[in-house]
């Protein structure tokens, strides 16, 4: 450990340790009340007391297992898969026959009370592991100690969890961090420990939860600063106690800090002059949704449900399986809205995987809503599952590839039928229905579609291809995405106008929403909801923060007056350059 004082400020104190988990946070230093520092009661048992003590031990084991199962569930729901796996290993360890056997043998041999017996058994195990030369195995001793402490807390009738005791934005100061400390506590902004290495399970959990964690800092020194404000910088391995205003301001403007703050506070996305932009995520696989917990998005703008059936064709005919799947999605989205696009297959999305699973299969040349309406039984199963799931949260339905108003009317009819069939099953009475605008035909009738639905969603990938006559497999297609043709820009402006007239929401979920250099133009054209891949969310949000809404509107106005794609590209680039300087 190295301790160094800098003279940049009179008051602030900088301590340098080693970084285990990255991230930066500002908070208050706190210490944990250490229950296991209290001396253990020790006494000899009188005749017949053994049974009672062994029973107490078994109760403590099963209570601990219950805690851990709960913790495991919570971590999994929150998407902390690594952390959940470690807790799962702890649960398995509790089932270990060696602990039970040893405790029983030793209790009968020594005739001591269970607390003392259990403590000595666990101590021996820890000892065996600790004496090993490999640090990898030595680190496992912390897991055993953690488990031991949990069971002991139950034996001593103390509660195992400390979640209530921690105020939000706390930076935890400990001698050595235990996995359950970070796994179960809410409100921890960072952790500073004296001992611990990167391969400790506690470190994995800290990383998995995105909590900055620094070790190799003297515990006694830090203990004297409890209750003081501090900055923990997991990127540099530095702790700044009593940071000066200048340091705090400098940090707040740094990128790393704003990212960690966003994870904890989930700030809304705004332009620098205060226009609120709704940022949503496009999701193809359910495991992507877990990322939402640590992501500054306002919900899922596009869940591509066809990928579910590609992976699990058996879901196609099961309302029950689908219902549980959509319900889990809502749960993982943590109360945020989820827009599920009903199965979009056909055309270049080969639905041949259906062949084995349905005899209702109709020509694969039909795509999106047309395919679904030609295979109504399959469509109805999905609608029923969605209606049922929607009673548990904010779920909306999105129709792909609509080209005619009749398709929306037919779908509404089918939804009505689905509701009738669900008369005895809980389901949502009202569900928002949206239409994808992704073929030129839909743009031309956007006003009619807008009157019959609750929201519109622009799918610019297909729209660009169908408008410009570019094949999806064409290599130049990807280049086109970085420069928008006037035709597409006019279409976006037109749809935005129609949505505004009908007073319904409009989102844009094509690849261009992930392109930070085009975001200004899209906002100017009247798009206030952008849905992009999870991995681009931060970049797009950063881009939006720097923009002024009124400048975006001016840019869109200018661009709509231009004629060629090259002029537009130049104009957007000039705008970005002017904005950066």
């Amino acid at each position, binding site marked *: 450990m190295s301790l160094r004082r800098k003279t940049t400020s009179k008051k602030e104190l900088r301590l340098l340790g080693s970084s285990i988990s990255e991230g930066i946070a500002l908070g208050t230093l706190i210490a944990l009340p250490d229950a296991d520092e209290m001396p253990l009661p020790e006494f000899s048992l009188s005749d017949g007391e053994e049974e009672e003590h062994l029973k107490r031990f078994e109760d403590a084991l099963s209570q601990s297992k219950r805690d851990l199962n709960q913790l495991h569930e919570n971590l999994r729901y929150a998407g902390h898969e690594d952390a959940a796996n470690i807790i*799962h*290993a702890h649960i*398995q*360890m509790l089932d*270990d*026959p*060696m*602990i039970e*056997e040893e405790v029983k043998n030793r209790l009968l041999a020594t005739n001591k009370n269970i607390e003392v017996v259990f403590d000595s058994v666990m101590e021996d*195990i820890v000892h*065996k*592991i600790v004496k*090993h030369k*490999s640090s*990898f*195995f030595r680190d*496992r001793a912390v*897991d*055993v100690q953690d488990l031991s402490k949990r069971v002991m807390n139950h034996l001593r009738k103390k509660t195992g969890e400390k979640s209530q005791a921690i105020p939000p934005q706390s930076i935890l100061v400990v001698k050595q961090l235990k996995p359950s400390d970070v796994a179960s506590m809410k409100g921890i902004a960072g952790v500073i420990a004296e001992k611990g290495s990167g391969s400790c399970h506690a470190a994995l959990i800290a990383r998995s939860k995105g909590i900055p964690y620094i070790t190799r800092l003297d515990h006694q020194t830090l203990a004297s600063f409890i209750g003081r404000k501090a900055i923990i910088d997991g990127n540099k391995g530095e702790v700044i106690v009593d940071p000066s205003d200048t340091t705090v301001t400098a940090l707040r403007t740094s990128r790393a800090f704003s990212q960690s703050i966003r994870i904890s506070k989930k700030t809304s996305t705004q332009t620098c002059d205060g226009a609120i932009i709704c940022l949503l995520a496009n999701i193809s696989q359910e495991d992507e949704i877990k990322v939402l917990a640590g992501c500054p998005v306002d919900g899922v703008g596009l869940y591509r449900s066809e990928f579910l059936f590609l992976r699990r064709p058996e879901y196609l005919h099961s309302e029950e399986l689908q219902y549980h799947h959509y319900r889990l999605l809502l749960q993982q989205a943590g109360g945020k809205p989820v827009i599920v696009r009903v199965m979009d297959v056909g055309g270049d999305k080969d639905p041949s995987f259906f062949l084995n699973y349905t005899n209702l299969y109709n020509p694969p040349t039909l795509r999106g809503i047309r395919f679904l309406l030609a295979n109504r039984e399959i469509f109805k199963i999905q609608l029923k599952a969605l209606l049922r799931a929607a009673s548990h949260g904010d779920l909306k339905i999105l129709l792909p590839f609509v080209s005619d108003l009749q398709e929306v009317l037919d779908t509404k009819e089918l939804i009505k039928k689905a509701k009738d069939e669900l008369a005895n099953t809980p389901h949502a009475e009202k569900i928002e229905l949206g239409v994808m605008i992704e073929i030129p035909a839909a743009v031309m009738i956007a006003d009619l579609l807008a009157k019959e639905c609750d929201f519109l969603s622009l799918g610019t990938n297909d729209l660009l291809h169908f408008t410009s006559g570019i094949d999806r497999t064409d290599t130049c297609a990807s280049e086109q995405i970085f420069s928008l043709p006037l035709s597409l820009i006019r279409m976006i402006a037109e749809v935005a106008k129609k949505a505004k007239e009908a007073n319904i929401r409009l989102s844009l979920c094509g690849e261009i929403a992930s392109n930070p250099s085009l975001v200004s133009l899209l906002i100017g054209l009247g798009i206030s909801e952008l849905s992009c891949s999870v991995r681009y969310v931060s970049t797009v949000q950063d881009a939006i923060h720097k923009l002024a809404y009124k400048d975006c509107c001016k840019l869109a106005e200018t661009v709509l007056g231009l004629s060629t794609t090259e002029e537009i590209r130049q104009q957007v680039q000039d705008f970005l350059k002017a904005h950066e300087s």
Partner: protein
Amino acid sequence: MKALRKLRVKHESGLHIRPVTDLVKWLGSYKASVVVTHNNISVNAKSIIGLLSLAAERSAVLTIQAEGEDAHQMVEDLLLHFQDYFEEESHVLT
């Protein structure tokens, strides 16, 4: 019925928590009692903590002794199931 097998730890991190929990979970479906010996220390192979306390690193040689009606089957299946974790040292049936 008794069965014996010598295995070498192949996994680069040794017999750490993941292989150990996998092994213990798998052994749970066999009736045979299984003892693992390494460096003259013998432990119950159905105990995570026991196996961890062996601290067997890569290339460590483990002696697996099983006793019970499905002992032979278990020993036969073991290597098939855990090819990523172990390789054969020598194979003796008694």
